[in-house]
């Protein structure tokens, strides 16, 4: 116990990091992977791909071919940067917007369409079979991610769990419980807080008095960082460092990525009810895709021809996915029962037959 009358028990600092400015100019030394032109181009491609898919999904919803859909417009750098930082063996826990990360990990556009099209088969991730599906109950993915990290620790594996959470999500107790536990056990867990300024109509200033969301990690006694989440270089760099530290036993960390939800909350939302168009326009000036494109072009790693090709590839891929999605018949009613338990109880068998009968009569 400290013995002097007035002293300081603890001191903390939340560092801030960025690599590129809003126009794509380097504002300091770049991470070494910036020498890897292939990686830079891949990240750019994935961001463009996510944005193109996103626009199509919104469009499908508007024309009645998809359910409610949460756009990722403006957040592509955070999502793709995290994907690029992860190892395939790591395990991903998302909320619902992070298609850039899912794409990077090999999830088909088709699956994403199925999920938002009201079909559970949208969670069948062939190439990242341990990743969790989208998690709609806000914050609830966090303790599960801590559990996955604990499994890795118990088995002594060099892997990491990565969990996204939104600015709104940081108000849920489950978020704090999980990062606190991760700290107490030094779990291999990296939490990326996507601060896109809004939780539906509630601005982050109303969500919390904390001047940064990164500082929430201080409550858990774990290191944290605030970064420019529209700068894919700093996302890839800082998340990569955090993952590597976690995998090698260095414990968890929290990264707050500052970005902006340019779109409505979902296709059911009308953001003009609660925020100004000026604010959205300002956000456009800082958005991540053009920024990275400028940087790549300045370094002569990208040009109009490449852009042209990419656009065509994206649109071909998207069209193919949409065609496949629209051609997919809905599941049989059996699917409601077949996956509930390994061995469904006898009573369910009767209900299964009943459902099948009514489906047949409905045609």
């Amino acid at each position, binding site marked *: 116990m400290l013995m002097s009358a007035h002293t300081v028990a603890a001191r903390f600092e939340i560092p801030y990091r960025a690599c590129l400015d809003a126009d794509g100019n380097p504002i300091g030394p770049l991470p070494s992977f910036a020498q890897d032109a292939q990686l830079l181009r891949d990240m750019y491609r994935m961001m463009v791909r996510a944005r193109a898919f996103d626009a199509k999904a919104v469009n499908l919803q508007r024309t009645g071919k998809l359910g*409610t859909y949460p756009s990722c417009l403006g957040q592509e750098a955070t999502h793709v940067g995290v994907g690029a930082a992860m190892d395939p063996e790591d395990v991903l826990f998302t909320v619902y917007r992070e298609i850039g990360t899912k794409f990077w990990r090999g999830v088909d556009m088709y699956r994403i369409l199925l999920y938002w099209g009201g079909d559970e088969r949208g969670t069948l991730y062939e190439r990242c079979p341990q990743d969790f599906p989208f998690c709609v109950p806000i914050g609830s993915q966090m303790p599960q991610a801590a559990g996955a990290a604990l499994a890795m620790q118990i088995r002594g594996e060099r892997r990491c769990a990565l969990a996204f959470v939104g600015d709104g999500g940081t108000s849920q107790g489950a978020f704090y419980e999980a990062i606190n536990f991760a700290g107490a056990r030094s779990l291999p867990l990296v939490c990326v807080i996507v601060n896109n300024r809004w939780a539906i109509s509630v601005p982050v200033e109303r969500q919390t008095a904390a001047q940064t969301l990164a500082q929430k990690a201080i409550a858990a006694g774990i290191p944290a960082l605030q970064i420019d989440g529209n700068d894919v270089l700093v996302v890839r760099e800082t998340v990569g460092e955090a993952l590597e530290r976690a995998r090698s036993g260095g414990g968890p960390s929290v990264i707050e990525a500052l970005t902006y939800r340019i779109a409505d909350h979902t296709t059911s939302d009308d953001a003009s009810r609660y925020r100004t168009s000026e604010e959205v326009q300002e956000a456009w000036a800082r958005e991540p895709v053009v920024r990275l494109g400028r940087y790549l072009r300045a370094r002569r790693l990208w040009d109009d021809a490449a852009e042209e090709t990419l656009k065509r590839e994206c649109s071909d891929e998207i069209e193919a996915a949409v065609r496949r999605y629209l051609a997919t018949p809905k599941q049989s009613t059996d699917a409601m029962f077949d996956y509930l338990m390994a061995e469904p109880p006898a009573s369910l068998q009767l209900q299964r037959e009943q459902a099948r009968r009514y489906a047949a009569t409905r045609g």
Partner: protein
Amino acid sequence: MAKITMVEAINMAHAWEMEHDPSVVVLGEDVGINGGVFRATVGLQQRFGATRVQDTPLAEGLIAGTAIGLAAQGIRPVAEIQFMGFIYPALDQIASHMARLRNRTRGRLTCPLVLRMPHGGGIHAPEHHSESLEALLCHHPGLRVVCPSSPARAYGLLLAAIRDPDPVIFLEPVRLYRFIRQDVEDDGRALPIDSCFVLREGSDVTIVTWGAMTVETLKAAEQIAAEGVSCEVIDVASLAPIDFETILDSVVKTGRLLIVHEAPRNCAVGAEIAATVSEQALYDLLGPIRRVTGYDTVMPLYRLEYDYIPSPARIVDGIRSTLAE
């Protein structure tokens, strides 16, 4: 008097009560400038100010706990949970405290408040947005659970709920929010809670149901009327405590009972109704009580949701099987 939807009626009840009782305060996620994701509280913040209509942080346990603290201090909170599927983080506050505060303090502290939330499926909403979890709440002594099925009943029952001296869970069937328009007088008149509503009189079979299933049930009753079957349709409306008198009277008259609800069957409110009626009116029953309900599986994503939710066809078959023996 204007023809309004259920969600407008709910909004109107809020406004009436806020106007007449300065202690009423509205809170929840997005209830302020956005007026709630279904617009149930639209315009209230503009009219009554940001002190009386407050957006909360995104935390349902916090919303429920805050409402308890407010209520015990003499404020009348009307709190919104954005969808019933998100009530779980609030259950500790609801069950361990809200339902018990009066009892555990021998009446010293009370908890008059309303917790409103959309209920059920049928609007092609995302995962976890279509749950019917009334049984969880009804099982807890100390709570009232109310579920209106028309604009007028929504208006009158919400007023009653806000004025009730005990906590009321107010379930709003999502697919009825804008289903019909009805003349609703904005007269501040509450409807009785703890009472069923007879929606259709009949003599061959009693059908009890609530919320959005009243619509499917009335359709089924209409359909089978063509075959000469006369259904009495009762909207239970108050799911806890239940007005068993009305239900039993009807069963004594018809001799047959069908229960229809959207929630999965096992351990649901329909089980309690079946158990109580068969206990108290066994000899009046001409055949077994039947239940047409959601299946005992997870509410599916939306492409199959109408294969899950009882349809008029299933209800008609339910009526037939009730009459078969």
